[in-house]
């Protein structure tokens, strides 16, 4: 079994995810990109788990999937609220973190 293919796939997914997070203005797309990043991590976890012949990697991957679900839930709720307040989900208009 070659680890390389999995790692390259994960890296590609990660890069796409990062691009999405940084470049897209649509809040939902950003959330989806975050999912991509997390899944890239999952791929790595499972691949290393298989490579080392343990189940730890898969266990972690399951955890990550669960948390990602929760995260998306919260994220979508936030996006919904933003939309309700601003009638838009353009993230460049949101600068509430400015102190």
């Amino acid at each position, binding site marked *: 079994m070659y680890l390389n293919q999995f790692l390259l796939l994960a890296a590609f997914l990660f890069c796409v995810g990062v691009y999405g997070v940084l470049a897209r203005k649509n809040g939902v797309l*950003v959330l989806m990109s975050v999912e991509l990043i997390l899944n890239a991590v999952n791929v790595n976890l499972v691949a290393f788990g298989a490579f080392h012949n343990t189940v730890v990697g898969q266990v972690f991957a399951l955890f990550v999937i669960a948390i990602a679900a929760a995260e998306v839930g919260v994220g979508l709720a936030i996006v919904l609220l933003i939309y309700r307040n601003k009638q838009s989900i353009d*993230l*460049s208009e*949101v*600068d509430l*973190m*400015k*102190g």
Partner: protein
Amino acid sequence: MLRNAFLIPLLPVISFALILFFGKRLPGKGHEIGVLFVGGAFVLSAICAAQWISRPADYLPPTGHAEAAAVEGAHAAEQASTEAATDEEHPADGEPAAEGEHEVEPIRKAEVREVVWFETGGVEIKAGTRMDGLSVMLVFVVSMISLLVHIFSTNYMHDDRRYTHFFAALSLFTAGMLVMVTSSNTLQLLFGWEMMGLCSFMLIGHWWEEKNNSDAALKAFFTTRTGDIGLLVGISILFFAAGHTFDTETINQTALSGTISSGVLVAAAAALLCAVVGKSAQFPLHTWLPDAMAGPTPVSALIHAATMVVAGVYLIARLYGVFWAGFHIGDGGINPVALIGGVTVIIAALLAFVQNDIKKVLAYSTVSQLGYMVMALGVGAWTAGIFHLFTHAFFKGLLFLGAGSVSHSVHSFDMKKGMGGLKKTMPVTFWTFLIGSVALAGVPPLAGFWSKDEILVGASGNGYPIFLVIGLIGAFMTACYMTRCVYLTFFGEFRGHGHPHESPKAITGPLVVLAGFSILAGFLNAPGIELFSKWTENTTVLAAGVAHHEFSIGLAVVGTLMGVLGIATGFAYYVRNLGPHRLTQRNQAALTGYKILENKYYLDRLYTDMVVGGLKGPVARATYWVNQNIIDGVLNGTAAVSKAVANFTYSVLDQKLVDGLVNGAGAGAEEGGSALRVLQTGRVQQYAAFLFGAVVLMGGALVLFV
């Protein structure tokens, strides 16, 4: 009594203390104590003298083998015994013929008694009395003249405002002189020496309300102190040279033994000579003595004629071994002692001619006579010098007291304006004064003749023709100026005010006694009798091998002729008005000479204005200026620089830099914050971009550098 000689100086010390503390409460204001105790001292001295004379002359000190003497001396010094070198039994080796121009006769053994004074550095320093002929003679003379002066003063000083103090100081002075002459060592000698200096200061400045008097007192003290530098140095040198001892006998014997290197001896002798020059008013430090006449007349008689001023002469006589060996006196060359004495004889006698104050005439005469004594010692005529000291004390004391008697009557010291014609009104004073003058002039058979003649004999016999000539010229001049003095005072018309009268008994009594001694004292050492030399000559003189010379009729005649010629010249010039008068008005050279004499050779100008004035004025001020501006300036400069540095530290370093840093940290943070503020847009994506960028950078760094 010779063993208990310490009592002699002790009595006047007690007298001093008693007068000081109780004098004012007594009916006589203290003079009874003074007269009583000094009288006691005189009686003891007389007993001493009698015992000394009756002492068998059976002691043969070591001579010839000088080295042996030195070993003896050193040995004795180390011994803790109370006796000094002379006590050592030493077989008389017999005088080797090679040494002997003189024969050694047995002498009287000195009586030495010492106690340990203190110890320093493990060396015992002793105090004690050493009674030999020289000491006994001086003790006798000093206590006697002091007693006479005490008696004289009871009347002379009667209405003085500080009568009691006067007697206290007289007693202390007597004590000082007696301590000096009885002392067995140089340290104690220094004690007495300085005690006299103090009393001289106190008594010259007795009427200190007048600035002139206190100036004279200070001058006397400073001048003698200047000489005392030499005494301190000389004593120090001899202390080590003689092997850690102050003992005079050991010092003399060591010096004569030749174990001390000649350089050291010359240094010691020269140093001591400085002291002599100061104390005995020799040229060029003689200037204080005439000024010292500012003191009361009895003081002048006692201190500045008969006793204290001969301390220098005594010092040479006492430490004769040092001078003898140091200056090679025995070899007949010209040496500093004789030279200074000779110069003093002439220059002081010259000055005596131009004085109008009777006391100043006598003062210069004293200086001149002291010159004789020093010269005598310098030419190797030890006995003659001491003998002249002895006779001079009587006739010069007499002359001063006579002058006092005159001034007591006419209230003036100026011979030209306040005296004249006193022969009739003051017969006792006149006759005694005349006896004193004739004795001083050296007319036989009075005291001065014998002693002066002996000096001349010594000078010629020891191969010092120059000093013989000086002595003769001096004799001529002495006779001449004394004639002038007697004439101006007692002959002619009375030029003063009031009615002169003969003085009371308390004043004339001492005059008569002294006159008696002035007539008779000279016979003590007249040829054929020669008791004086037998009584006084001590081991030092014998060890040195001082030569004795026969009385010479020819020299005596020449000496007498000079005296008589002097009197005649004086008579002719001053009384008969013969010879070239008013020379000073016609002849430039004479005028210059007169000016120089009148200004006392400008020595006073040199000392007072240049040396003292210079030290007191410019030098002291310059030193103080250096102190205030340079040394203190360095200090204050350091302080100023420190202060400047401190200011700089505070205002620049501290306030600007350090404080600046602290404050700057705040301000910087603020400004940096506002700069960074721009970055904080509040947009999450931007933050994430930073985050990511940072991760990339760090990751890159990790890859690149680790």
